[in-house]
């Protein structure tokens, strides 16, 4: 073991300091397996003090590091820095405090999203942000990516539900950002940290806001014979003045995949499915349900179902939440894209994506948070066919540019990570990016925390198993 590593061995017992190839290989990727990198070592801290000591070690030896929760990032966010350290936080998974009266929960970063709601359930409370990965993904990862979910339409993203965070800065200092209450003093430092993708330090304690569980849900599944009609229905619902908890669309490929995975009982002949969910106090939901019924009836749906009980509701959602992974059943490989367009441009964006799909000869499945215009085109390809990955990536790039040109964004919730950093200049000016970089360097002068992510022209991506990244070939990114 090299001397620096044996120094780490004084912080960690052998079973929590992983250095053997068989231990490192499984940490080489997150949920975007097109990128892989072998870290120098993986450490599994169990206390804040161990995190502080580890960061100190990294700073002394100038070793870059990446924090990792459950490794479900879809953008290479938790991809190791080649030769750097992975700090696996999944063992720091305790619920530190749950205060039903104050409606807050304080958790360690490795606590799983869904477990927050499970712990709060006996008090009639829950944690609102619901990424599809909620049974797996950690609060630390959610925070770093400002994750969203189907119900963020009404309630907002992670940032709207985090009150405070204790953070170990890249210098090893511990700071407390935010506060326990909704009113803070001074600028929103916590806001700067949320969504910073692990570049500004490691969250070791997070205070979350809990909400009372809605008294009643009204979940509607509407089937359409075209994607456009479903898209227009979303616009119609919003125009009618309703604010549903969630509005989701799946196209026929996604329906097929989800059905194969979890047998949700979706109408299989539909070209598009729209899920709309109202939630809140019973009388209010009942009144809104009638209103919604009229809007949907006028929207050209050929079949409308309303969940009669909690089981039927769960089944509708199960299909939707399994859709990403389920697409693995339709194709050996796929890229999950994540872009945003203004809601009014949904129909236009979908038509354009369909045209691009035909042009590239690659199937694209669409599952998306229609209510907030957050598209998730899944680009299906076969990595064994030479050049198809590059084609798929090029198609993904065109979709992102399309989103920006329609006035939207290159990411809704999956983050920039490794995958999208080359597109940052499409969204931000040189001056914007330079400021971000200055702020980052002020916090992390050596750029050790998750080095090489988010900023274009920052250190190069890891070697992919299939030669140079297309963006490399295009001269957009490079490796030293």
């Amino acid at each position, binding site marked *: 073991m090299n001397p620096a590593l044996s120094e780490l061995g004084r912080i960690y017992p052998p079973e929590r300091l*992983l250095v*053997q*190839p*068989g*231990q490192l*290989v*499984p*940490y*080489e*990727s*997150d*949920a975007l*397996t*097109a990128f892989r990198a072998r870290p120098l070592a*993986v450490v*599994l801290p169990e206390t804040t003090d161990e995190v502080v000591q580890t960061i100190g070690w990294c700073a002394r030896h100038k070793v870059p590091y990446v924090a990792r929760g*459950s*490794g*479900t990032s879809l953008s290479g966010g938790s991809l190791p820095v080649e030769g750097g350290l992975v700090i*696996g936080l*999944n*063992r720091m*998974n305790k619920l530190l405090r749950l205060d039903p009266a104050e409606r807050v929960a304080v958790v360690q970063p490795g606590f*799983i999203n869904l477990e927050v709601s499970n712990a709060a359930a006996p008090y009639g409370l829950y944690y609102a942000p619901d990424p599809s*990965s909620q*049974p*797996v*993904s950690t609060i630390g990862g959610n925070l770093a990516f400002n994750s969203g979910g189907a119900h963020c339409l009404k309630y907002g993203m992670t940032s709207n539900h985090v009150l405070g965070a204790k953070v170990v800065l890249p210098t090893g200092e511990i700071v407390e950002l935010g506060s326990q209450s909704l009113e803070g003093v001074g600028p929103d430092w916590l806001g700067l940290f949320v969504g910073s993708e692990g570049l500004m330090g490691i969250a070791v304690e997070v205070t979350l806001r809990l909400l009372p569980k809605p008294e009643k849900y009204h979940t509607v599944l509407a089937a359409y014979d075209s994607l456009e009609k479903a898209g227009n229905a979303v616009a119609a619902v919003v125009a009618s003045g309703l604010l549903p908890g969630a509005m989701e669309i799946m196209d026929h490929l996604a329906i097929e995949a989800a059905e*194969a*995975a*979890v047998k949700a009982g979706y109408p299989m002949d539909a070209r598009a499915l729209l899920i709309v969910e109202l939630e809140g106090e019973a009388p209010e939901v009942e009144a809104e349900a009638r209103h919604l019924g009229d809007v949907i009836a006028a929207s050209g749906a050929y079949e409308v179902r309303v969940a009669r009980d909690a089981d039927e509701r769960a089944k509708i959602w199960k299909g939707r939440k*399994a*859709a*990403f*992974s*389920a*697409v*693995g*059943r339709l194709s*050996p*490989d*796929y890229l999950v894209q994540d872009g945003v367009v203004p809601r009014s441009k949904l129909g236009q964006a979908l038509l354009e994506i369909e045209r691009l799909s035909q042009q590239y000869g690659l199937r694209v499945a669409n599952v998306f948070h229609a209510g907030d215009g957050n598209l998730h085109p899944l680009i299906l390809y076969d*990595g*064994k066919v030479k050049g198809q990955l590059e084609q798929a990536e090029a198609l993904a790039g065109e979709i992102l540019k399309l989103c920006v040109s329609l006035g939207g964004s290159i990411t809704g919730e999956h983050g920039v990570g490794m995958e999208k950093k080359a597109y940052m200049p499409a969204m931000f000016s040189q001056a914007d990016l330079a400021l971000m970089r200055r702020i980052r360097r002020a916090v992390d002068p050596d750029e050790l925390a998750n080095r090489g992510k988010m900023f274009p022209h920052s250190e190069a991506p890891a070697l992919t*198993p*299939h030669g140079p990244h297309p963006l490399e070939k295009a001269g957009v990114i490079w490796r030293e």
Partner: protein
Amino acid sequence: MQHKIDTQSIGPQGEVMAHAVEACVHCGFCLPACPTYAVLGEEMDSPRGRIFLMKEVLEGNLQLEEAAPYIDKCLGCLGCVTACPSGVPYGELISTFRGWAEPRRHRSPFARAFRLGIMELLPYPKRFRAGAQLGRIGKVFKPLLPQALQAPLELLPERLEPAPPLPEFFPAKGPRRARVALLAGCAQQVLKPNFNWATLRVLAENGVEVVIPSGQACCGAAAMHTGERGRALALARQNLKAFPNDVDAILSNAAGCGSGLREYGLLFVGEPEHEAAEAFSKRVQDVSAFLVNLGLVEPPALKQPLKVAYHDACHLAHAQGVRSEPRKLLRSIGGLELVEIPEGELCCGSAGTYNLEQPAIAATLGERKARNILATGAQAIATGNIGCFTQIQSHLRKLRREVPMYHTLEILDLAYQGKL
């Protein structure tokens, strides 16, 4: 996931493994379903981590011995298969990989002897019975024995119940509704002979006549799941010959054995009997599923209400998708209140020979399961697998909180007899 596994040179088993690797998208939905990930909290002890490791070994990028410790720690409970939205046939991958890897493994002489001991003992009820008797005597010397030999002793009962020989034929009561063949199972014939007798009586009560072919062998699941493919094939060949065709179904009352029989199609990939084995597998059912399909003759209601916790054996729930059937059977008994066990999807740590080979993890899971069961406040526990039965019983005993345990069919049997 992309891979460069050379299926040409590995052969038909290579195809099976490559197909599973391809289906995995590394999304991580398997993590919360994996008992070893729950206990160890490391990526290499998770299903997707193991898939990564197996892929790297098969591609020649990683030494087998580097990956082996983590592959060995997999319980084969298939909780991940239930959780996986992409439909990765993980069970096929791990079984096939273990078979491929075993001849390439370096094992210490002690480890080899230990494995050989298990393989020469467990599948043969007579030898197992003799071994178990010896083992009971050996308990006295337990503290003197190496750790690896202590685990099996802990699972042995204080005293072995008498095991009258099973008949080759057990007639139906009243008009015959069906005719089936029963796999008697190895360990349960020694440890819990009443499982089979209760099964025979319940089937008879339901108008089912049963043949127990005398030429039958161990199902071979334990051998198959630990990479001893040659042994598994030899046992399976005996069963292909021994089981008759003139029956409506081949039944098993042990989750692990039933799922073993249902895997013959996979075991025989690349062998001349492949088709016959696939056809055989399709005829196999768990006794609970068979009874539900047949339509259960309603048992009399209990004299006193009884709160029963049903424990899902992984090889029923995850491997065979049999979850509702045993519950239906139990609910059909008037006065029986069925309760669900928290974390019911999580393996109890028994997993075939796992509690012998990985005693530490098995013990952690066993205790966790026992505590979860106790939390239900149940007055009795039902399950459909001998492995789970001994594991849970031994951990309840360790906590000094014994709760009466039954095979699902034993509860039905007692209900029919009016003894509950």
